[in-house]
């Protein structure tokens, strides 16, 4: 069974045509991988489908815009993986 990170990395590699080996847990989706907001919608769609969740992108964006969170908290892939694990756990609770 692949980890959450592996699933996300595979989705990003396939969706954005980025070499899988260049996608690391420490990679920032925007700053390091150069994923723009439109491509991220495709990634969010694939993540929503793969995990049966709804990534709260609007809430995250608002928190970043309000200075209550940094993009690192949501878009560094190891952190994104942790957020997804939380959402999956909350769904099953």
């Amino acid at each position, binding site marked *: 069974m692949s980890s959450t990170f592996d699933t996300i990395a595979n989705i990003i590699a396939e969706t954005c045509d980025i070499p899988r080996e260049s996608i690391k847990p420490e990679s920032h989706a925007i700053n390091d991988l150069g994923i723009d907001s*439109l491509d991220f*919608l*495709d990634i*969010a*769609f694939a993540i*929503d489908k793969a995990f049966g969740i*709804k*990534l709260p*992108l*609007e809430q995250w964006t608002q928190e970043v815009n309000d200075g209550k969170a940094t993009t690192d908290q949501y878009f560094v892939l190891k952190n994104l993986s942790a957020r997804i694990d939380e959402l999956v756990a909350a769904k099953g609770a």
Partner: protein
Amino acid sequence: MRLEYFQLIDRIVELDLSGRTIKAEATVPTASTIFEGHFPGYPLMPGVLLIETMAQTSGWLVVAINNFTRMPFLAAVKDAKLRTFVTPGQVLSVTAELTHDGSGYAMTEAHIKANGKAICDATLTFSVMAFPNPEMEKRMRATAALINFPTGAPANG
């Protein structure tokens, strides 16, 4: 269709909020300056306007599902297929299904048929956000009234 106002659908004929589907009708005008250029001597409905027709139909579905609190903006068009020519005067049946209701975005599958024959189809992505200003919402509500948008429909069907 009122091409000069970029109103590509004439009326909504079915809206199923629980099934997340919509059906609209649109009659291609018999005359328009657009046909003078597309194409001279051989008038055809431009494919980009067929895509816009699917986008507007999908958009009204997203508006309805969000109970007129959010506005969809077309963000991506995938797998668009323009299967046959559309000529002035043709009556089009436009359908769309919401395939994913994401956070701040939505995806639909849309189709156009004429006399039961497939005309075109596409997968569409929309950014969904609050109305940018009250004037836009007001005008969208006015357009909704023109196309038989079922105002007052419950959001959960």
